[in-house]
């Protein structure tokens, strides 16, 4: 993997990104929800995405049924976006020692949104804890920044 692609992949772990989660049920009906944080300690071989318990019932049900999951990470300031697709390997209630990570991610996201005109208090009013931690095996990574390259496979 060249250095540019590696940097592009690491983009999706940058603090302050908007996290979207897509799943599908057994009948092929898709569902979406917003995530709060992502983490990976193995160079994106696996990724853990944190979704609020309050808003992710359908997502959790779907990954339990089909294990299929897509996670998009996008910077609201410049729309630079990446999408990771793969298979769920674990879905659990996030531990207390992960709460700080989730809170930091929300604060960083609020900072980015504040720079584009969305007040921090609005962003921080979003439910973020307790959260589910969904771990996926990353099988494909795609460029998703709007433009002609959107959809190109990065890995």
């Amino acid at each position, binding site marked *: 993997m060249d250095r540019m692609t590696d940097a592009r992949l690491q983009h999706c772990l940058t603090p302050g990104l*908007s996290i*979207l*989660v*897509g*799943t*599908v049920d057994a009948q*092929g*009906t*898709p*569902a*979406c*929800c*917003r995530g709060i944080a992502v983490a990976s300690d193995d160079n994106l071989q696996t990724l853990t995405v944190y979704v*609020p318990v*309050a*808003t992710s019932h359908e997502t959790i049900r779907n990954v339990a049924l*089909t294990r*299929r*999951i*897509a*996670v*998009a990470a*996008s910077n*609201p*300031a*410049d*729309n*630079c*976006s990446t*999408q990771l*697709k793969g298979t769920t390997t674990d879905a659990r209630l996030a531990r207390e020692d992960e709460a700080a990570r989730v809170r930091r991610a929300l604060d960083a996201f609020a900072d980015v949104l504040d720079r*584009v*005109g*969305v007040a921090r208090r*609005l962003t921080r*009013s*979003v*439910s*973020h804890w307790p959260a589910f931690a969904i771990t996926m095996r990353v099988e494909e990574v*795609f460029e*998703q*920044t*709007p*433009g*002609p*390259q*959107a*959809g190109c496979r990065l890995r």
Partner: protein
Amino acid sequence: MTVPLSDIWRCFQGVIPSIIATADRNGVPNVTYLSQVHLVDDRHVALSRQFFNKTSRNLDENPAAAAEVMDPVTFQAYRLRLRFLRSERSGPLFQTMAMRIDAIASHTGMTGIFRLIAADVFEVLAAEPVEGFLAEPPADVSAAVSLDGARTELRGLSWVSQRINRATDLDSLLSSVLQALEEYFGFSHSAVLLYDEARQRLTTIASRGFGPTGIGAEVAVGDGLIGTVARERRVLRLPSLEADLRYGRAVRRESAGGHGLLQAEIPLPGLPDAQSVLAIPLTIGAQLVGVITAEDRDPMRFSEWDETYLTVIANQIALGIDRMIARDEAAEGAVSEAESESAAPEPGPEPPPPARSDPRARVEGRASRPPRRLTFYKGDEAIFIDDEYLIRNVPAKILWKVLGESQRTGRTEFSNRELRLDASLGLPAVKDNLESRLILLRHRLEEKCPDLQIVPTGRGRFALRSDAPLELVER
């Protein structure tokens, strides 16, 4: 609990990007942001498709989709369960959605590259609030227009209508309308641009709230937000200007590698930090008269309601402008007849050009003021005052004509008629917008050179006044 889509209309203004999830025939999900979710009616929405991407391929295989939209005021999210019906590539819905994208594309120098391919129409099977999305209940903000508000706006409409009817000249008509828009409707940043058919350009003739630099600003038909409104003769309401521009710039950045000839981005006229724009064409039938625009720093400033009543006002302004122009031309005809009957000396239709053999000439003014140097650049048809740009094209040629005439003969009184008879000025034979060009010239002089004034002295007549000696240079 399914909510009527009309109750959550703010979610479809594009202020906060929406998201969509689809899945292919093998059940592999895809999730992405959407640039535009358009509310079609209470059972349908349309999504903009700018690129042939994974979402569109999935929809061809599996029509089921899910979207999440968010109210930019309360921050409450709603989930829509969707079924893809069809792609529209022409017709009113497509045109409406395409115009917004065309305007952003033009504004970011992406015309022809960033464009609407299709409006994908979906049936909305369910629309539900995302329970628990906010840690605290959303703020109670009633979006309904109160009766008091409507009454104020009706009074405003009545007032504007009266001012248009009573206006004695184009300048007072436009300034009083913009004043009324601020006083009655709270539009504190507005402008009117008039259309020059011969040059296919629009020129700012009146503005309010932008500071002095707005007058004289030009845009070509088809260029940028205002130029697109003029070309399409359709209303453009962008409640999410900054978000739309960010999206357009992202596409531009991603496209730059493959297209070396991207045009320079057009500077946004008006507020540098505008978050919302409402631009309405001024038309009479199919004929374009100009464009009226309003801008605001609040992304949700302009609603459909604002669009509706500003459209009513725009129609009245267009009729008022047309009436002024017709009256100006009719009055000139009357003056012409009177002059013929009284055998008054008529100015020559082809006066000699300003002193070319002696390019430095002076028009006398009050000796106590320092002299001002006016330079006419023939190639650019532009006049600079003390090296600062003043005006170009027809108004520049008009000013240069009267300055030259004044310098040669000492005349200070001029008529619109003699300008119309001077073919060298390049005025169109019909609908020459002479009055608006003189207003533009007058305002630019007020702004850049108060020592030199164009003063109306009666219908179809004006005088040149100078409070300082003028040095005329032609290059």
